[in-house]
């Protein structure tokens, strides 16, 4: 799981106390992924158990964590391994569209248009954050925002395609055939969400 590797990556830059690990993790991920202190310490104790980090207790009782050679190897391996896409992602939007298909093309257009507007507003907001990150020269954060923007863009392009498919189905055939085609398209979406 990536909390484990993210902590290793932070420790790769130098030894840290547990609390510093938590705040650096959150700073790096833009608080998109809030951690509680308990998660940090339970992950650290598993890392210690597996020999990936070494722990030194200081005079004041605080624990200082340091990455081991085995930890570094594990981290390099993580960097070199592609992330596996979820095979069946839980996509509320795809499911909503499938059921809107059953209610009729007007309903689909409604879903698409409302979602496009909402998605667009988020991309606008991300873009403002990006301009700020650019000014601050914060490259890691900039790339993270890019990821959010491209994900939102993919969703918007898919929605536009859905809308275009509906329009084409309507124009290529009479209303009855269009409805039949849309029902077929609904089944396709169900098969490949």
């Amino acid at each position, binding site marked *: 799981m990536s909390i484990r590797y993210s902590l290793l990556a932070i420790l790769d830059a130098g030894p840290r106390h547990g609390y510093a690990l938590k*705040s*650096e993790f*959150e*700073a790096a991920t*833009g*608080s*998109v992924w809030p951690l509680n202190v308990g998660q940090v310490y339970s992950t650290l104790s598993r890392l210690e158990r597996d020999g990936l980090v070494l722990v030194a207790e200081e005079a004041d009782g605080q624990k200082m964590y340091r990455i081991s050679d085995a930890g570094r190897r594990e981290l390099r391996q993580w960097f070199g391994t592609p992330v596996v896409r979820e095979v069946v992602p839980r996509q509320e939007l795809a499911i909503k569209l499938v059921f809107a298909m059953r209610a009729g093309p007007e309903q689909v257009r409604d879903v698409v*248009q409302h979602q*496009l*507007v909402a*998605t*667009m*507003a*988020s*991309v*606008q*907001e*991300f*873009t*403002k*954050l990006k*301009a*700020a990150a*650019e000014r601050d020269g914060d490259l890691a*954060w900039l790339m993270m*925002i890019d990821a*959010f*923007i*491209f994900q*939102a*863009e993919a969703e*918007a*392009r898919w929605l*536009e395609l859905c*809308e*275009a498919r509906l*329009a084409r189905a309507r124009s290529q055939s009479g209303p009855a055939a269009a409805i039949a085609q849309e029902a077929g398209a609904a089944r396709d979406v169900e098969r490949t969400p």
Partner: protein
Amino acid sequence: MMPVLSMERAGCRYGSPPRQVVALDDVSLTVQAGEMLAVMGPSGSGKSTLLLLAGGLTRPTSGRVVLADSDLGTLGETDLSLVLRRRVGFVFQNASLLAALTAAENVSLPLELDGMRPRSAMAAARALLSSLGLDEVANRLPAQMSGGQQQRVAVARAVIGGRSLILADEPTGALDSLGGESVMQLLRAQSDDGCAVVLVTHNIRQAAWADRILYLHDGRLVDEVHPPAGPESLLSRERV
């Protein structure tokens, strides 16, 4: 404040009934100085027609298109071309720089066409390119520049002479992501400096640079997106 551009129930129809095509229907909008407006919509939704009307390249068949205080629908040809030359700059998908001229020569051309002496026009072009961080390409021919550099020079050509409105049609369409971003940053900076910008695009990443986004469908405005309140509401970031 008077808007730089306003459309009042503007429409554009081609042909006559029963084979009439309604390219744009009853569109009203205003763009202020310093504002960037993006227009989105599927192919055939009327985006390009809107830009043609805004730039005076097509006259509305109904309603009005007003640039500063000139009604573009009723101006005579000579006055129209003068208003457009002084006030409106265009940026197209392909930079459309003249291949035989350097960047600086391309940028100085609109000033020369408007009657400025070549030396003064060239000095103004160089100063503008320099202020936009394009010094290094000033003496290069278009073929010696990257696509992103060519488009940024095209933006410089669009704003030279203090034009108040830039109309951009898919200005980053032919560029890679980073090249496209550099062009959008430059357009945004022009808008922040007081220029009104209207951008037509099908790319939401580009549209997101705008202050407002309009959606066209079948020639009509169907939606408008404003930036969400507070730029930090979606993501917050605590600094270490």
